[in-house]
């Protein structure tokens, strides 16, 4: 390992290509933390946005007009406004209304930190898209299948959980895949409210070392790889869930 660090230090001295996040232990630690925060943020948001999508799609099939209206209002509001302003709204406007709690050192701190607000805001943003996606999948499930389940005495919830959803998920996987990729890319917005994710830590590193081009190229490659891993995993899942004789 020391040899590698030495080589990159040498690289900096001879060519001027400065990659401190490899040879400098402090910068390396920061970047690894940032990377892990990005992964953590992405995974938590992925989970919650899918949960919101599933619940929202279920509520959209409700027989109460007002439930449907509220869900539709939520979708339209979150789809047609900038995610960054949503994030600011949640973090600054709602965050400042919440009561402050006492920290263990006796100071005052907001009830929810920036990471928590980023999770909430981004989950709701991606969730709005997921509701639409799941709804289109649920509509693709034949009515007769649902009727068959009804005649077997399944309740509405059981039908949704055991019959409709498993079929719908297979139909919507490609578009879900697309939206989740978008979500991973949107996690960079958390930079704006100082969540220490990868972009934030990179910005710290490039302001300390003045190596903007190197960090930029590293960032582009890093996100390319992250998104690539997600797409690869989703494609595998898609193939594993494939219904024989349906789709190409």
């Amino acid at each position, binding site marked *: 390992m020391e040899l590698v660090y030495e080589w990159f230090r040498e690289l900096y001295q001879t060519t001027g290509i400065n990659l401190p996040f490899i040879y400098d232990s402090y910068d390396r630690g920061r970047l690894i933390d940032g990377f892990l925060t990005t992964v953590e943020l992405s995974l938590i948001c992925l989970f919650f946005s899918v949960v919101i999508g599933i619940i929202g799609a279920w509520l959209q099939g409700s027989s109460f007009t007002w439930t449907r209206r509220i869900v539709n209002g939520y979708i339209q509001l979150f789809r047609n406004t*900038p995610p960054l*302003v949503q994030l600011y709204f949640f973090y600054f406007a709602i965050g400042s209304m919440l009561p402050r709690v006492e920290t263990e050192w006796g100071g005052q701190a907001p009830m929810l930190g920036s990471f928590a607000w980023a999770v909430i805001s981004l989950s709701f943003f991606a969730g709005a898209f997921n509701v639409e996606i799941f709804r289109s999948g649920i509509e693709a499930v034949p009515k007769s*299948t649902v009727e068959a389940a009804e005649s077997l005495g399944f309740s509405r919830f059981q039908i949704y959980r055991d019959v409709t959803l498993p079929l719908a998920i297979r139909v919507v996987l490609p578009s879900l895949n697309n939206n989740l990729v978008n979500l991973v890319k949107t996690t960079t917005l958390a930079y704006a409210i100082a969540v220490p994710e990868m972009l934030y830590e990179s910005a710290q590193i490039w302001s300390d070392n003045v190596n903007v081009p190197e960090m*930029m190229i590293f*960032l582009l490659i890093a*996100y*390319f790889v992250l998104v690539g891993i997600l797409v690869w995993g989703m494609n595998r899942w898609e193939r594993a869930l494939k219904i024989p004789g349906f789709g190409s």
Partner: protein
Amino acid sequence: MTQRSRSHDAPPKKTDMAVMLPVKRKAHDPFRLKLTPWHGVFLALVCIFTTSYGYATTAPEVDSIRTVMLRWMPLLLEGFLFNILISILSMAVGTAVGTMLGLAQISLMPPIRHSSWFVTQFFRNAPWLVLLFFAMYLLPFEFTIAGVTIPFPDWIKAIIGLSLPVMANVSEIVRGAVLSLPSGQWEAAESLAYTRRQTLWLIILPQCVKRMLPPWMNLYSILTMATVLASIVGVSEVMTLAGRVLAAEDGRTDLLAPLYSFVLFLFFVYCYPIARWTVYLESKFAVKG
């Protein structure tokens, strides 16, 4: 089921077997939320009531939220117009370059095809914010061509930074539209002795425009919402101005919610009709099957 009772069923079904139906895009209008002027009145009333509540809770010597909002509204609207300007310009640049890139993706020459595919995928998979930083920090702030110094202000760099992902997405839209045309079109043109270029310009692309319009408009509305990212890199658009308004009002925390709601509202008013229109066009152009 006898033949006779079958004939009474209003729309004759092809089969009684349970089959997976294709995903219906517009069976139930996803934009079931049909906004009428009445809703606008309702929203305005909500705004007035919440701001009056805010007024009631603030000390009498400071200006009420309503006065403050009215005072700064022209400035914020101006900022929003700047957002729209940025979005239109980067859409124009992105579409022009992206169309080229998309056509390069269906080129017959493998090096061009593969390299343009790579460029498209690369910019499509990179976060918008990172690309914006990329353009902001790596482009020079002025150009000197033949002794003439051309300044290169922040907002032009923002336009370039935002047009990079637009370019990649347009490229994919163009490629998808060209591939979605039946190959019979190509073959028919070939049999009529059209050259490849003629086929593309006269036969394929005119048909693609219709298919590309809904995703293109969708992309435009995404881009419009992404223009606020320029505030992070210091372009004085609506979000930056909102921050300055806040600073000018001594950072009153009760102003946060109305200010940000107002910005959200502006974008909603602009983007919601576009979304509705996109859905309408999609259903209009949809192949009846």
